[in-house]
């Protein structure tokens, strides 16, 4: 008996009507959102989205913004959740910290996940809390055997508490620890292997970090374990200079995605097939139309022939090689 092969939503001729069911059977197990474009959900846009039943594959929010007891934020998120798939993208777990995780915060996250049943839940390879308090930034860590163990233990703890796997996002970094002994991709892959967590590939972060550290972004994308990726992020960044006058890119999420990042995205999608893709825009929020246009641009790339061809053989790159 042969199993019917499900077409990924993005390639279906009527994708807009069938694409909202999470968990297409094609592709890696890390994918639980529709293989379509989504955007960050911003308070400024919610009424318009609900009033016009705006066309969008899915929405993502920072759970920390919905950790009040009640009120309009929950009312609005409930209304959105009734019509669209939802992703919770945390910024507060401080998974890269040496110290213990904040149990109250895990409990708040669990309560929110139980309430909204999001299709996806993700966090960052970073730390944000230390003894004195919450430092409100995604701070970097060295990649060593010690930190592989620490981060893996923290992810195990979170996944056990939540009763589900999460995605871990590659960071945008401005400094390098001279004490690192493991390459970033190997580090992420090892954590994914140990904990079963999926990965979130932020292509703007790849561009920012590779530019800041003088590395080739294309090589990073080509080597990334795409079969473990459950979601892709695209965003805009700002540009500055460091002490030596070298280009220093800053992951600002306050403007449109630039062409070199779109090129890297095409490169990743051509290899992986369609993946759920977020346009991440968190400050200097544009009009809804601008954000929706960015999402349409991503959606078009998801629907290219090459992306769809690859999606028919999900996670089977090695298999294809054997057949050739």
């Amino acid at each position, binding site marked *: 008996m042969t199993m019917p092969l499900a077409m990924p939503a993005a390639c279906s001729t009527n994708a807009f009507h069938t694409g909202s069911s999470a968990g297409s059977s094609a592709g890696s197990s890390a994918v639980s959102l529709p293989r379509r474009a989504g955007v960050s959900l911003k308070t400024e846009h919610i009424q318009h989205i609900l009033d016009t039943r705006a066309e969008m594959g899915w929405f993502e929010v920072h759970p920390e913004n919905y950790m009040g007891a009640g009120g309009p934020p929950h009312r609005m998120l409930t209304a959105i959740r009734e019509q669209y798939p939802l992703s919770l993208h945390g910024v507060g777990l401080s998974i890269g910290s040496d110290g213990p995780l904040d149990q109250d*915060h895990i409990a708040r996250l669990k309560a929110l996940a139980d309430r909204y049943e999001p299709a996806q839940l993700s966090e960052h390879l970073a730390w944000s809390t230390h003894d004195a308090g919450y*430092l*409100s930034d995604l701070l970097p860590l060295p990649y060593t055997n010690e930190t592989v163990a620490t981060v893996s233990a923290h992810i195990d703890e979170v996944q056990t508490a939540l009763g589900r796997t999460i995605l871990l996002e590659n960071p945008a970094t*401005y400094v390098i620890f001279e*004490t690192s002994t493991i390459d970033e991709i190997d580090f992420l892959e090892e954590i994914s292997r140990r904990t079963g967590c999926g990965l979130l590939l932020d292509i703007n972060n790849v561009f920012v970090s590779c530019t800041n550290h003088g590395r080739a972004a294309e090589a990073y994308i080509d080597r990334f374990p795409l079969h473990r990726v459950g979601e892709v992020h695209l965003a805009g960044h700002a540009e*500055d200079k*460091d002490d*030596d006058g070298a280009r220093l890119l800053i992951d600002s999420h306050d403007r449109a995605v630039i062409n070199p990042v779109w090129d890297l995205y095409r490169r990743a999608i051509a290899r992986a097939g369609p993946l759920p893709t977020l346009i991440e825009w968190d400050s200097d929020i544009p009009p809804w139309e601008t954000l929706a246009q960015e999402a349409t641009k991503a959606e078009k790339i998801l629907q290219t022939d090459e992306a769809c061809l690859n999606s028919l053989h999900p996670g089977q790159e090695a298999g294809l090689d054997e057949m050739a």
Partner: protein
Amino acid sequence: MRWHDVQAAFANALMNPELSVPEALRRKTDGQPNTARFNVYRNNTATSLTDALGDTYPVVKTLVGDEFFQALARAYMASHLPQSPVLIQYGAEMADFIAGFAAAQPLPFLADVARIEWAWLQAYHGEDRESVPVDVLSSVPPENVAGTRLVMHPTLHIIRSPWPAASIWSAHQDDDDEARAAVLAGIAPHGESVLVLRPSLDVSVECVTSEVGDLVQSLADGAELGEAAEQLGNGDAATFGGMLAYIFQIGAVTGLQQADANS
């Protein structure tokens, strides 16, 4: 060096700009720190927390201007880092901090404006609970009314200011510059009592007489209706009834409790 120690050094340098970049981040080649790069993190932390405080205290920010607010926010965060990543709860002690902030002394009403803004945010994110109408009192046998307590709405906050803090706050709820200027020009030390609550979808900010403010405070503190009427003093039953009806009308009451039920 263990990650524990490197992380402590990183956090310390992050919050103390006079410290140099942690050793673990210096270039192996020449041992030089790249301060501009480390400063991206310092700047992100300071900007993000300043923005969070600005979102919570928009009227305070308008009253003092961006530059002053930034200095105020940086001074606040130096002694009051958030204790959780839930930034909608950051800034609880700002009003008291402003009251003790020397540079803010020329604006003696500023701390109470901050109290209203904090109460507004707490009400906005607070628990959803249905209010009850004043009619519920008619279900209480007349002999038990004096011994009844009101269960106040969980989002209710009472602010009693020696300044017209609510008028100043209200004048900043739209972009009417003339109205703002008029209020600010006429500021005199006359007190206002303010009730902040969210009975359903929207937060209400009610400017009330000091008698109503005192009455709500006393009811919220658990006074029985008989006691509360007595505290009001002048023995005018009609006035007390009117105030009570008003308190119900704004949605401040969610239920009744018989005093002897708990004693």
